[in-house]
């Protein structure tokens, strides 16, 4: 029961980060700021959700898959964030000159 409540709390906080990320996406002034807000928010949000769902998981196989999902999303969003940031910076540089 306590575990359930803990899991629920983790998932709820994860959802809060997603909402925060969306608000950042809408309100922040420029692309790089939005990028910054977003990668933090969805990384944390998903991490907490994964943790919460893993606590509720029934079998070890499920936990393994959840860890895999988290790992994959984390690396790919980091790499894509990096690529997009590079692209934005280059576009800005090209426009500035």
């Amino acid at each position, binding site marked *: 029961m306590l575990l359930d409540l803990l899991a629920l709390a983790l998932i709820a906080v994860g959802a809060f980060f997603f909402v925060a990320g969306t608000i950042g996406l809408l309100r922040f002034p420029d692309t790089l700021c939005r990028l910054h807000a977003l990668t933090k928010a969805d990384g944390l949000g998903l991490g907490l959700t994964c943790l919460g769902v893993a606590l509720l998981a029934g079998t070890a196989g499920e936990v393994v898959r959840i860890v895999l999902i988290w790992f*994959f999303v984390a*690396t*790919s969003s980091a*790499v894509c964030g*990096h*690529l997009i940031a*590079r692209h934005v910076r280059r576009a800005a540089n090209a426009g500035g000159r």
Partner: protein
Amino acid sequence: MVEPLLLFDALLGLAIAALAVAVLTVHDRFAMIVLFIVFGLMSALAWVRLSAPDVALAEAAIGTGLTGALLLTTLHHIRAAPAAPVPVPGGVVVANLGLCALIFGGLAFAFLLTPLQAPGLAPAVAQNMAASGVGHPVTAVLLNFRAYDTLMEVVVLLAAIVAVWMVERGTVQAPAPVLGEIYRGFSRLALPAIVVIGSYLLWVGAQAPGGAFQGGAVLAAVGLLLLLGRLYRPQPAHRPFARAGFVLGTAVFAGVALLVAGGGRLPFEYPAAHAKTLILLIEGMVTISIAVTLAALFHGREPEAVPVSEKSE
């Protein structure tokens, strides 16, 4: 109080319809494709809610992921074209809007009058599952009960790649973009992981949602990453292998279907003792074909040797 899950469903349904409208109305073509990808993700979620994880997998992998990639490359190729060549007269729009509203009304009316409790073929499938050679009903339908349909679906894929290779002629290859060390490290890590995930999906298909199409689509993603990062460049000399890859699934599938016939058995009637092995064999080969074909569809044109005369120009 309304049950929260139903509220979720209703919101999701509304969002899907709104996204469909947005895809057609948004002015920017890039936004159109992004909205379409989101639309696909939301539809997959809806299918999950309808207890159809297999379909959601296929839609996410093929209908949204790979289709999205195809759309993005095409937009990249034709970005010089004007976004809206000819404005459509308002009268035509209004008339068609009325027509489609009428069609929606009629179909919705017919749908609402139909009870959703038709027995369907579920009992028949359940009854024959033991004889099918696999443990997952959707895989049993795809590769045994309605295997003929699935063979023809692979034939459609073959027809698509033949048509695409015929239509497109050697366009100029853009120079390879420099993606940097981080991307290279990522692909070194991600590509084997994706191969493992694809194979896992193929393997799990015998017992749980997954199978040849989803596995093939995930493996095709490997091809996409290789092509995008210029880690693999199609060469004219590779064409025979590519062709062999395209036809492999169809050939093995059709071959098995015919070879099991005889001795009182009909085409597609796998001998009970070997049903599982044969289905696995077909699925494996079909997966390879699907992966190769989807990646080739993404690449488009046939890799052709540039004639000497054109080279010098």
